[in-house]
């Protein structure tokens, strides 16, 4: 019971901090706080550390593949030079 109450309190505080960070315009701050909230849920509510070891392996595996998807999936867009993806209007080939 106490564990649940503590986790709930932490989540509420983190939510408040997140709203404050958003008001200050700190995107990174919001991101860090969101990750902390996820950690509280995974450790506090889902109790991954008390689950069978396989569960931890599966969770880390999922996280690893998620990283691959996000990292390699965005690689092209973030490094593309032939076709401008930033332009506000219709994308067209840049004049060399």
């Amino acid at each position, binding site marked *: *019971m106490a564990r*649940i*109450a503590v*986790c*709930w309190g932490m*989540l*509420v505080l983190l*939510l408040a901090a*997140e*709203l404050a*960070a*958003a*008001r*200050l*315009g700190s*995107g990174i701050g*919001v*991101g860090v*706080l*969101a990750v902390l*909230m*996820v950690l509280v*849920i*995974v450790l506090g*509510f*889902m109790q*991954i550390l008390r*689950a*069978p070891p*396989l*569960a931890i392996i*599966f*969770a880390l*595996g*999922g*996280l690893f*593949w*998620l990283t691959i*998807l*996000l990292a390699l*999936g*965005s690689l092209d*867009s*973030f490094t593309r030079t032939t076709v401008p*993806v*930033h332009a*506000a209007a219709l994308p067209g080939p840049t004049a060399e």
Partner: protein
Amino acid sequence: MSDGSALDHHSPYETPLHRDETAVAGMWLFLASEALLFGGLFLVCLIYSHTRAGGWAEGVRHTNLSIGAANTLILITSSAVYTMAVEAGKRGDNRRVVRAGLGAAVLGLTFLALKGVEWGQEFRENLFPGPHFALHGPDTGGAQLFYSFYFLATFLHGMHMVVGIGLILWICRKARHRAFSAAWNTPVDIVGLYWSFVDLVWMLLFPLLYLIGRA
């Protein structure tokens, strides 16, 4: 339907503990799969919020922060309340499983109701992307992409909520028939994992849809 802690003779397991641990591990594996399902959405968000930063931020500014924050609080609470059901299940306390389960389900329904109100507002304000889209800023395209993401992400999350609430009600029904005991309560546990995961996804969607780029 094999309930109770006994193993029937076709069961592939040696002991009840073996079976229950396998079920929990299986649920985690399924959740890893679910994470990749939402991962595709996150990639869309990551790329467009970067390449169409202006329009994207304009979209973020038009979401309803008060409903979003209230819903976040509701979901945190719902997840906490259901975790109490999991604890009660471990003690074999079926009455508390029912009470906590119903509490979590009601909170979940409240979330969906508020989400419905929010969607209704957005439809009235023509924020659904299309030819009549309301935001005419310099990057209306980016704002439309944001709202495509917004509606699909909240829809997908909402569908997970519906499934989760259904599962919780199923647990409540079983608990009313005193199905769980200190020796056997794996379904309560597994539904808890799913419900917390749905909560977890919202903890990531909330900042992406409402906060980052707002100020």
